[in-house]
Structure formats: C-alpha cells, structure tokens
C-alpha cells in the first residue's frame, strides 16, 4: 500500500515534469515554426519576444537564449547604421547567457561568429578587418568544438564570399569552402527538433552564386 502510494506520487511527479518538458518543447517548436516564416523585423521581434519569455521561465535551458540572440542578429541584418549595433548588442548579451548555461558549445561560438560578421555592415570599410578577424576566430573555435557542425563552415565561407579579392577573398576562394559546407549540411542531423538547424538553404544559394561565374 505504502509502496503503491509512493509509486503513484512518483508517477505524478514524473507526469508533472513530463508535462513541463512537453510544454517547453512544444513552445519552442511553435516559436521555431514562427521563426521560419519571419520576413521582417516586426515578425522577428515577435518571435524573439516569444523565445525571451521561454528563456525567462526556463532558466536552465540554453536554447531559448540562443534563439533570442539569433532572432536579434536576423533583425540586425534588416537594419542600417547604428541600429545594427543596438540589435547586435542584445544578441551578444543573449549569446553570453547561452554560453554560461552551456559552456564550450560549438553552436554558441558559431552564433558569436555570426554576430561579429553582422557588425561589419555598419561600416564595412572601417570594420571589415577587425570584426572579420574576430568572426573568423569564433568560427575556428566552433569547428574545434564540433567538427560536424556545418554552421561555422558556412560563416567562414560566407566571410570569404563577401571579402573583396584585393583583401584575399572572393567567389573563387569561397567556392571550395561552400562545397565543403554543403557536404557538412548533408551529413548533419540536429540533436532534437528544437536544436539549431539553420543555414542549409543559404549555403546552397551561395554555392550556386559561386558556380555562376
């Protein structure tokens, strides 16, 4: 009898936790679905807000913070001038949060690489060398942490793609990198439905652009 009660209480606890976890995953999935359809800053803001609320409730999960950061970088890319930095500042703050929850995570380093490369567009002439270099370092570190993560490969290839040939970049040099990136994407399977899984389309698109010439 006692055992049965303990079992039942245990089961209840399990159910509660399960429900909580299920709620977390389903909320994340819902927001990720929203993110896929985002096309403008306001819709990204709405998605970022959603992830922020999850981050705020699930204080031990790194993924919500990761996605708040990601949405903010995406917003930054739709902005101009100083606004880019404002959004990148927030993205960096949440990337740091994700890093503290999940240290030495290849995805978080790739995210940082993305943030740095986004900061270049505030003033490419002035910032190219500095932030390009910092982004490259983050990508290298991300590769080191997980050689199977395709995103750092994409970011490095993309950096090469946009660097003028006079500075040692260009499409010719980006081509082999993108081919490698696409291969990495083909072999990649996210750890769960809510783990990072973006960039494949972009890699293919850039590869097609490189092949055109």
């Amino acid at each position, binding site marked *: 009898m006692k055992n049965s009660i303990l079992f039942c209480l245990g089961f209840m606890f399990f159910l509660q936790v399960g429900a909580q976890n299920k709620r977390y995953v389903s909320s994340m999935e819902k927001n990720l679905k929203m993110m896929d359809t985002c096309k403008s800053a306001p819709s990204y803001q709405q998605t970022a807000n959603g992830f922020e*609320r999850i981050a705020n409730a699930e204080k031990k999960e790194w993924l919500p913070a990761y996605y708040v950061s990601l949405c903010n970088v995406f917003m930054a890319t739709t902005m101009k001038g100083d606004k880019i930095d404002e959004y990148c500042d927030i993205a960096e703050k949440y990337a740091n949060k994700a890093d503290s929850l999940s240290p030495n995570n290849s995805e978080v380093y790739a995210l940082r690489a993305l943030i740095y490369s986004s900061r270049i567009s505030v003033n490419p002439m002035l910032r190219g060398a500095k932030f390009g270099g910092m982004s490259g370092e983050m990508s290298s570190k991300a590769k080191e942490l997980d050689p199977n993560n395709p995103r750092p490969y994409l970011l490095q290839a993309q950096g090469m793609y946009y660097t003028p040939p006079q500075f040692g970049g260009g499409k010719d040099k980006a081509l082999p990198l993108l081919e490698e990136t696409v291969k990495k994407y083909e072999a990649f399977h996210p750890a769960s439905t809510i783990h990072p899984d973006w960039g494949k389309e972009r890699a293919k698109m850039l590869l097609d652009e490189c092949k055109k010439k």
Partner: protein
Amino acid sequence: MKSIYPISKIILLLFLFVGSERISAQTKITGKVTDGSKHPLAGVNVYVKDSYDGTSTGADGSFSFMAADTGKATLVASMITFEKIEKQVVLQGKDIAINLVLKESSNQLKTVVISAGTMEASDEKKVTILKPLDIVTTAGAQGDITGALKTLPGTQQVGESAGLFVRGGTGNETKTIIDGMVVANPYFSGAPDIAARGRFSPFLFKGTVFSTGGYSAQYGQAMSSALVLETQDLPESSSATAAISSVGVGVGINKLFKDSTTSVGGDFNYTNLGPYYNLVPQDVKMTQTPIFTGGSLNFRQKVDETGILKFYGYVNTSQLGVSRPNLDSTNGYMDNFILKNQNYYTNLTFKDNLNGKWKYYLGASYSYNLDDIKPDNLHVLNSNELAQGKVLFTRSIGNLSLLRFGGEYQDNHDISDIQNGIYHSVYNIRDEYTAGIVETDIFLSSKIVARIGGRYEYSSLQEKSNIAPRTSLAFKTSANGQISLAYGDFYERPETRYLLEKPSLNYERATHYIVNYQVVQEQRTFRIEAYYKKYQDLVTTLPTNLQNLQDSLHNNGSGYAQGIDIFWRDKKTFRNWDYWVSYSYLDTKRQYINYPEVAEPIFATPHTASLVVKRFIPSILVNLGATYTYATGRPYYNPNNPVFLGDRTPEYSKLGFTASYVRKFGKAFSVFVIGVDNVLGTNNIYGYRYSTDGTRSAPITATASRMYFIGIFMSFGIDRTQDVLNNN
C-alpha cells in the same frame, strides 16, 4: 486491486483539482504600452515574470493575454532601447487592465551631453564630429594630430610655430593631456620660425577630445584649450607593423597574450630629412640635417571586468641646425642655430570600478626634456623635469548624474643654463603645484544636464592660489539637436622664461562665456558656437628695466577675444564622398609681453575657413583626400610704421592633397600613400623679420613651398592600424 482503486481515484481527484484550479484561475491582462510622449510602442514584450505567459504589443501598442499563475506576480515590459519596467500585480482570475509607460534607456544617443567648446573624435561613442581615423586621413595634416585639428573651427593657421592657437590664444594656452596626465613637451623642439610636429602618433589614441573653451574642472593650467587624448586599450590581436617613407623608417610590434588580458608592445622610428632635402631643396640653409630617433614601449593589462592598467613610455632624441642671413650684417654674416633635444615621457594609469556606484582613477607620470641650443656663440641648456600624480573618484548618482572629485600634484623643475664664454648664468626654479577638483553633472532629465564645479590650485613657486569656477548647461531641443552654455575661469602660470626671472608673478587668467548649438547625426553634423573670452593679468615686459629685468615683469596685460565658429560635416549627400567645412570669425585684441598698447596679436586673423574632402573609390580601393584652407592676413610688426602692428601679411591659402591605395599581399595589409602639401605652391608669408634699424626685412615662410610625402605602411596580423587602410 482493492487497494489501487481508491488511490487512482485520489489521483484522478488530484488531477481534476489541479486542472480545475488552472482553468478557474486564468487571468486576462490587457492594456497599452506607450513611450514618455504617449506614442504607442509596437513589439514590446509584455509577460509575467518566470512564466510562459505573455505576448508582444501590436502596432497600436495594445496587448492582451491570459496568465495561468495565481497570487502575487510581476508583470514585465521590455523593449530594445527602452528601460525595462516591472509592475506588481495580483492574479486572481479577475481581468486586469493596465497601461504601461516605457522610458528611453539613458545610454541612447538621445541623452544630452555637455558640448559647449568640445569637439570629439572617438570610436566608442557612436556619434562624434570626427573618428580617430579622420585625423590620420586628413590631407595636408601629414598624420599629425595638430595638423588635423587645424581643420576644425576655432584654430588659427599659424605656420611658423608649433601648437594649437585657439580663439585668440597663444600656442602656450593649449595643454595636451594623455590619459589624464599633462604632457609638458607635446611637440618636437624646433628652430625659430619653423613649426614642429606633435611627438605622438595618432595611432596611439582611441579617443581625442579637442576643447576650445569652457572645459571641465579636471583640466587646469590652460587658458584657451585642452587637447585630451586617451590611449588605446588592449589590441584585438597580436600584430607587427613596418613603415618605409620618404622621411624615414619605422617598425612596431604588439603582442596580445593568450588570455587576452595582457599586451606588450613597442616601436622604433628613425626619421632623417637629409635624403628628402637633397631631392627637394629648402629655402633655409640646413647646417645639421634634422634627424629624429626614438621608440616607445607600452604595457596594458585588464585586471578584471572593469579595471585596466596602462603604461606608456617614450624616448626620443633629435637634432637640427639652420642658418639664416643676419639682417643687420652687410657682409653676409649668418645667424646660426643648432639644437639637440632629448625627451622622455612615461605615463602609468589605473582605472577601475570599486562597485556599481564608485569609480576611481590613479595616474602617475614622469617626463624629462633637454634642449641643448647653440644660437650663434651662445650655449643654452634648457631642461624641464615634471613628476606628477593624480587621483580622481567618480560616484554615480541615480542613472545619469555623478559627482567627481580628486586631486593633482605636479613637481616642475626647470633649469636654464646660459653661457657665451664671457658670462655664465644659471636659473633654477622648482614649483610644487597642487590642485583639487570637485565637479558634479546633474541630469534634471535625460534632456537637461548641468555641470557645476571648480578647481583650486596652489603654486609653491609663485606662493599663490586660485579658485576657478566652471559651469556648463546643456539641453536637448530635438532628437539630435541641443543647446549648450558654458562659463568658467581658467588660470595658467606664466611661461617658464618669465618665471625664471621673476617667480612671484601671478597667474594669467581667462574667463570664457560660450553658447553652442549643434545637431549631430550619424551622417551629418552642424555646429555653431559663439564665445567671448576676457583676458586678465597677462604678463607684460614693458617698460624694460635693463638694470633689473625682474622689475620689467608685471601682470599688467589684458585683452579679449570674441567670435563665431561654424562646422558642417556631411557624409550623406554624395555617395562615397565625405566633406567638412569650418569657418572661424575672430575679433581679438590684447596687451601683453612687449606690446606698448592694446592690439590685434600677430597670431590672430579675423577670418579662417577650411574645406576637407574625402572620396573613396570602392572599385579600385583608392582613397583621395584634399584640404583647402584660407585665412585673411595677420598683423606683423613693422618698425617703420608708427601704428603698432599696423601692417598685415597677405592672405593665406593652402591646398593639400593625399591619395592612398590598399592591398593585401599574403598576410600583410599594405597601404601606399602619397601626399603633397601646398600643391599650388602658394607663397604664404607668416610675418616679417626686420633688421635693428628697420631698413632691411625678410619674410617668414615655410622652408619650402611644397612638401611631398610618399610611403608604404605594412601590417601583419590584425589590429587597428589596418582600419586606416580602407578608411574613407
């Protein structure tokens, strides 16, 4: 079976209970979010803290969502560039209607800043008049900080002596400050009537504040202007640089250690104008080729999140010799001048936050300068030794306001040793100078700030003290526009050469009144400033008492300067073009040193204008730059004119040109630079020298009509220097 049934019943009941409570306790929260001026804010994240429940506001700022929790809860509203707010609510199933107002965060551009008299070049602040790289890439400035600042309003085009002549002030009235420490000899020692460059490379600094008046109580002993320079923090990564140019060579290295908290760097530079002078003959006979040899060391360490320790040490020696015809001689006698200079400068500073509210700064510096001069058969040794320390505490009050206080100590030691074989005299003075600083920035809102403070100074040599009040006020008139006012007293000890004769001289003094209006945007800046400056207690040397020179020196001089400075910069209108225009109107008169009456001084002119243009051509990665400067003539002393300083030099005009091309070879970024100063070869006359009897005269001009420069700068690894490469 028997026993399980009731338990599962209990479970069922429990679930029903829990579930039903959830359903019954749902609270609907609705409302609207606006900013301080009641404009609706869209995209605000409104949610219950530590829960999943919340939503984003719509285009009209409204929100509505269901909250599942019960009891006391915190409602949060957050949005980028606004301060996050939290409101306590009680969730008990009853609808809650609540309107929220968000305040703009104070770190936004929208916060008012004290701007009267201040022009800033900084990378850290988003919107400034100049970026540090503008200083390097301004045509005609030849990579000299002073040269670039001379394209800003308020400065005079004084081509025959070093320094910044600001708003009717002499070059001595501008002080240079590096990381809070005064620099006693910021310029290379030069020959009479030949302007010397600044000692410090613009690459050293991450921020430059050029103040043409009304500056903070933190800075003293400058009657007209303060040039406040802040050195770079840790580099982003290790790098090595090399430079070869028409005037010399230089190498440098910066090593960032693995943990990225410590860096060590150094450089060595050798400049020799000999080869250049052989190719481009100078109008003045050089008896000793100008040669400059020097190096520097730096050390930077981040001790924690907020604390940084910086050391900078500099050593340089130089020599030069010129020979000019003696105007009193009819048989070709020449005036000779030979100079050897040694200079050391060290600077050690530490900055940290004590806790959230307190910040402190500690600084120490030692410098030594020796000029060994041989004018004709004289031999003069002038040495200056300066040891100084500074402590500054800052306490923040609320979000924006702050209180700043601290003290400064300077031990100045000057020796002048003069001999000509017949007589030998040594002057030796030592001044222990102490100063106290108190200042507070009070923000009445993010739109209005008042700075009230003062400075107390005491000089042991002069045995005199002073109290200098300083106040400023600034208020926003629109999102990017603001009006700023400043008033203050600025004391300065008389020039060393007068103090050597008579240490008991009083401080010279200027009082500033400034009104400024500016609109600063990322791509466009407009600034207009009007000022009135009153000079008192200037040192006079008349009537001369040859028996006792001491008796000739008094603080009997006075004067005024008033004018308007206008600045306009535009990077927007023409794509890939960037230009700025400066105009200064100056009306000034003074009686000082050997002026028998009040007159417009020889370093001042009513109208000065500059146009700086930069054009970047992305397809070939070439930067082109041109600077045109115009100034009306300046008074000069003609002994044959009964009116004192009644003559004027011709107008001054100069066109400078620079082009740079960037390319990456292997791992080295390389920049090729060519520059021509005074492309048109205009013969600019700064004044005239006269023979004693006034019958013969010679114009004072630059040593050559044009100056050419060609150089290659290489950088290996990634650091700030590369930014220049492609700066437009």
